[in-house]
């Protein structure tokens, strides 16, 4: 109960404060393990010199909303400022036994599963509070997952500008053409949050996205 009140207060606080400052709230959305926190960390490192959150190979590492205030990006002498909101990955199912495969003990796995379900609910609630969104897709996986379609459908319905980012292009299995083919109506940028590949092109598109909402 306390957690629900805390989360609600957090959304309300950032919502009011964000609107007052005229600051763009940039949400990171996607399936678990798409690399949302890795990309958020890369952005925070490049522009603030610090990380945002912990990353791990175990799905649902981010189980709470993480916010980084006042990220200032500069391009060709122009500046944009935004608030970065990293959300827990959205999934339609969670089985604690899946975490056991990663070496977690039963109790740890159960607790992680419980926190993950709450995180997903929080992510969905934040859809009402973001001004622009980066939808992260794992370039090595099937882009036609219902989660991606549901997220994009909600953003279209709310008229929120979107940038689709295909992450993990450094991996052999990555298929950027397939991602572009799945989302022909969107600008799709391939990056590797891990190696930093193609980040310049990404920043250019991110700059345009933030500008749209200014």
């Amino acid at each position, binding site marked *: 109960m306390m957690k629900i009140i805390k989360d609600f207060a957090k959304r309300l606080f950032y919502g009011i404060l964000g609107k007052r400052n005229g600051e763009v709230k940039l949400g990171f959305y996607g399936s678990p393990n798409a690399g949302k926190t890795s990309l958020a960390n890369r952005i925070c490192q490049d522009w603030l010199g610090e990380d945002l959150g912990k990353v791990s190979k175990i799905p649902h590492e981010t189980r709470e909303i993480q916010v980084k205030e006042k990220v200032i990006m500069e391009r060709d002498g122009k500046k944009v400022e935004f608030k970065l909101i990293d959300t827990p990955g*959205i*999934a*339609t*199912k*969670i*089985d604690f036994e899946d975490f056991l495969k990663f070496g977690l003990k039963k109790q740890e796995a159960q607790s992680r*599963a*419980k926190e993950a*379900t*709450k995180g*997903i*609910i929080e992510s*969905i609630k934040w*859809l009402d509070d973001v001004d622009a969104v980066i939808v992260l897709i794992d370039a090595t996986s*099937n882009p*036609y*997952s*219902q989660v991606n*379609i*549901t997220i994009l*459908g*909600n953003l*279209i*319905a709310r008229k929120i500008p979107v940038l689709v980012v295909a992450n993990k292009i450094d991996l052999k299995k990555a298929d950027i053409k397939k991602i572009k083919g*799945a989302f022909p109506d969107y600008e799709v940028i391939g990056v590797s949050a891990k190696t930093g590949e193609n980040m310049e092109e990404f920043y250019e598109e991110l700059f345009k996205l933030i500008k749209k909402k200014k």
Partner: protein
Amino acid sequence: MVDKKKSVKKRINNSFKKLHKGLTIHFMPYSEIVNKDSIERIKLLMKHVLDNKIVILQGKLKPDQETRLIENSMTLIGNIKGFQGIEVATISGENTGENLFEKIRYNLAKILVGEKDSITIIGPASIVKEMKRDPSQIELLLQN
């Protein structure tokens, strides 16, 4: 000898029943949801899913209904024994027309049939292991 044969036959029948136990496919025509609001639609779908049924729905949910369905599932995990969430996938008739006339024809047809040209499949994750979707088909993989 006869008794032994009967026992083997019984064992085969039982294992067959066990294998298919809990697998019910429920076809839901569009008429069953068209007059229902979001909450009623989700309640109805969840009722079937919690009964361990795979629902084939004629039509599709609105984006906000889809997220509400996910939220609902997340709330139930941990509160209903054995419930691990859902698997869901939707396919729609795509606009493949390349010329203007075909596009107009497709859009006109869409206005007439509404969302009925889509199919949504929803099933409990404890029964449906994975739904592989590509633009034109859905492949259902069941749990062992």
